[in-house]
């Protein structure tokens, strides 16, 4: 199976090419450099593996939530590449990618992912991971940190929300916190593989962002 994955939804910018069990990747933390970095990274991994876009089984991308502009850059790259090479697309949640990253490295299964949404809110969701993938326990949403609630469990906290709102998350009991972790393309690729297996792919036109925050304009009175 061959999957190209992209992540530009938060401060990180990364690309991963999954070839069965091998992953070739490029990544940088570059809050404002996504548009400059992403396509050269794609070109590098494809060239290194001597793979053409048309050889891929699918393209996976981080569809958010995250920075609006970052998410749209990833989306437009995915749309352009997929439309141009007739690829089907797997849109992957940034929160799910974070959760899988925790499970991949530490084996912790219960993950509470929080991304700083600014304006006193967090994007968040709770997952249970196993070797097959991530299962969502609490749906993705955007709320003030105080309103994050999960069933009792052995939770690991992950994501920038934990650093930004540490004081306001003290009602949550967690084993440990990985506030520095960013979504990564290799995890997007791995979750994208599940989507391919399950036939959950969409056409390029339907590769769209998920913002969670939808009130972004206020009518003039």
């Amino acid at each position, binding site marked *: 199976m061959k999957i190209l994955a992209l992540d530009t939804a938060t401060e990180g910018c990364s690309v991963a090419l999954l070839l069965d069990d091998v992953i070739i990747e490029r990544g940088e933390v570059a809050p404002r450099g996504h548009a400059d970095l992403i396509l050269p990274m*794609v070109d590098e991994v494809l060239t290194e593996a001597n793979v053409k*876009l048309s050889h891929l089984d699918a393209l996976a991308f981080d569809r958010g939530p995250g920075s609006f502009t970052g998410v749209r850059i990833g989306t*437009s790259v995915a749309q352009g590449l*997929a*439309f*141009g090479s007739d690829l089907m697309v797997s849109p992957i949640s940034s929160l799910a990618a974070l959760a899988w990253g925790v499970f991949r490295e530490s084996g912790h299964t219960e993950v509470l992912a929080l991304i700083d949404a600014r304006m006193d809110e967090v994007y968040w969701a709770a997952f249970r991971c196993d070797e097959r993938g991530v299962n969502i326990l609490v749906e993705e949403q955007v709320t003030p940190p105080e309103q994050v609630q999960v069933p009792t469990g052995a939770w690991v906290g992950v994501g920038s929300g934990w650093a930004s709102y540490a004081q306001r998350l003290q009602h949550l009991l967690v084993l440990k916190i990985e506030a520095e972790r960013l979504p990564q393309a290799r995890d997007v690729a791995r979750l994208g593989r599940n989507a391919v297996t399950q036939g959950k792919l969409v056409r390029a036109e339907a590769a*769209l962002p998920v*913002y969670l925050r939808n009130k972004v304009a206020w009518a003039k009175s």
Partner: protein
Amino acid sequence: MRVLGIETSCDETGVAIYDSEAGLLAHALHSQVDLHAEYGGVVPELASRDHVQKTLPLIREVMDRAGCQVEDVNGIAYTAGPGLLGALLVGAGVGRNLAYAWNVPAVAVHHMEGHLLAPLLEPNPPVFPFVALLVSGGHTQLVAVQGIGRYELLGQSLDDAAGEAFDKTAKLLGLGYPGGPALSRLAEQGDPHRFKFPRPMTDRPGLDFSFSGLKTFALTTMNTIGDGVQDKADVACAFEIAVVETLVIKCRRALQQTGMHTLLIAGGVSANRRLRERLDAMAIEEKSSVHYPRLEFCTDNGAMIAFAGCQRLLAGEQHALAFGARARWPMESLHAIG
């Protein structure tokens, strides 16, 4: 050479295919006017969100309409600035990456160069050199044009752009947003002799403009009269005449100053009927010719981007894999071609 052009710099998604031999093959436009109307102006985040949904469907549409296969497209042009950064990045991202997938060159187009070259899509296109008046929602500029990419700024608005002045005055008149075209329609019923508005900065030499005082003048005038339809139409008419006469005076000056005999006008306000009539009359007196885009290509569109991009691609220009966009980008910094 056949070029796909993509425009997403503000509140319209425009896509077109231009062929250097056969001309314009197809174009499609999605306007977001209704989306922004209730906010009284363009909301950048909403604009970006809409572009990301509309760009690919429009590309598919123009490919179908032009009867174009992937192999027939030799390059992709996208607007890279100036404009709303988030909005620009959508068209640039889709365009640059599509070009990569199709293995064709991509070129980043300057939005105002797109506007400026739009009249060259018409029959009997102007030949260089000429004076260009760019009058749009964000720009009012007089430019001496020696060739593509050879632009010398002769004058510009020191405050509001002409289109912006139309829109703001329209808002005062209760005509909604963007009210430029509505104001112009209302002006047709107005009495041209009831009020006389000033012609800003015409009593001194130079080619700069200033339009922000006109909306204040409109407001002061409205405060002294009733608010019946005829009153509003009379104000609209006086306002429009003042803007048009000011533009005409400066265009005449620019022709005389440069010794050129060709005038080109582009951008949203170049759709204005009164402006076209008055410029035509002035040009006859100056033994000059005037060139306009067709009405639908006065405002933002993909055709002008495909055309401008095609000229630059033909000259061998192409853009690297990075696709950064620029909210600000002075037109004088462009490279000359040819």
